[in-house]
């Protein structure tokens, strides 16, 4: 579904990504780990077509990926650091608005279903301004998955979620992968991410420091690799 080869990005003289290979097949759930500034969010911004790499090759669904390819954007779902929801609109209106931009059919029904799925149905006609941070994150998850994307890109998705919300997110990710979709998420949640991912990748200073299939690597090995990347003892 996705294949990136030797992805590099430099801003001025500073190299942010220094040649990263990444791939996603149907059913894959790749967990990205590393210290702040390791390049996780930058890699996700390239894979979500927000920016072009300085060099390297990115292909999606067998075709070269271009950031102006609107058809390709419809096949991606992205959830960033910030929920990015409109505070003055209700939860329902937020989803309907994005549904319209994605030209979805039955947009009101889809919005209702998405709100039920993330547990916000009772608050659907309340302004998002009155939502807690966790509720906004749930709404952002509903928005990111509203158009049923094939690849989900999630940047620290567990941020602000309570345990119930985090479990809900994990279930959503597992179901997405079980349906043949692929997920790549950046996280600092070691335990939760280890249980969720089918593959783990640790970045350090823009390079892949360590990676392994979840089954092939024990949790201790993952924690050790992460500890080395963070320059501290594993959490």
């Amino acid at each position, binding site marked *: 579904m996705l294949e990136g080869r030797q992805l590099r990005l430099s801003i001025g003289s500073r190299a942010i990504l220094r040649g990263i290979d990444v791939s996603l097949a149907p059913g894959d759930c790749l967990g990205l780990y590393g210290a702040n500034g390791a390049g996780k969010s930058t890699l996700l911004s390239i894979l979500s077509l927000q920016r072009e790499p300085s060099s390297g090759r990115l292909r999606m669904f067998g075709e070269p990926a271009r950031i102006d390819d609107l058809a390709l954007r419809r096949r991606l779902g992205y959830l960033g650091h910030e929920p990015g929801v409109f505070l003055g609109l209700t939860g329902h209106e937020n989803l309907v*608005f994005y549904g319209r931009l994605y030209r979805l059919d039955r947009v009101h029904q889809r919005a209702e279903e998405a709100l039920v799925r993330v547990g916000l149905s009772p608050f659907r006609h309340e302004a998002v301004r009155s939502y807690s941070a966790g509720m906004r994150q749930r709404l952002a998850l509903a928005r990111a998955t509203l158009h049923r994307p094939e690849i989900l890109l999630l940047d620290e998705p567990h941020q602000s979620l309570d345990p119930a919300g985090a479990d809900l997110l994990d279930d959503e990710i597992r179901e997405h992968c079980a349906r043949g979709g692929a997920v790549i998420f950046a996280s600092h949640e070691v335990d939760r991410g280890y249980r969720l991912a089918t593959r783990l990748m640790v970045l350090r200073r823009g390079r892949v420091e360590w990676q392994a299939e979840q089954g092939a690597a024990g949790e201790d090995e993952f924690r050790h690799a992460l500890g080395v990347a963070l320059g501290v003892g594993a959490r």
Partner: protein
Amino acid sequence: MIRSAGWILWKDITLELRGRELLLPAGVFGLVIAMLYGFAFDPSKSGLHGMFPGLLWLGIFFASFLAVGRAFSIEADSAQQLLLAPIDRGALFVAKLALNVLLTLVLAAVMTPAFTVLLQTALPAEVGTFLVIEALGLVGFAAAGTAMGALAAQTRLRELLLPVLLLPFTSPLLLGVVSATSALYGPTPAAASSWIGLIAIFDVIFIVVPALLFEFLTEV
């Protein structure tokens, strides 16, 4: 593209009607300018009559800065999601341009009567021509403001950068609208027509060039 622009405009108008974050401060600022002009210049002096077009347009432009400059910043954290949606960037430009035209028209509709009352100057006899000048001038200002707002929104210094970019950029337009309006108050109101033609040319340039460059402006 037009349908996407329509939905973005619907969203912006809904947010503005509920939050009143753009028009209210800009409108209050515009009225304060009118009052300060009223205090600073003696409206009873006949010389003020000749200054009225310049004072009116400067007031409208300054107040419009506040509204036009924030048309992109109301996206705030949502801008990333909006730019990721599978829509032509042109739809975003069209939506913001339409919003800015609406905002500036409402501001002018409030400020023009206030200026005539506080500066004790009646509208020119050719009210229809005057309204055409206002509409064309505001469309041009809104178009330039939309383009510069998109550029400034990418920077940390957007509040400072926008007037620095927009004031010099729109100075030919300001000259055109003030001259056209002054002509309506002069002995030969027909002289306004050549200025109206010039303003229309500015409008076309301010709409077409940013529309072509908008993709670039939102990526800088």
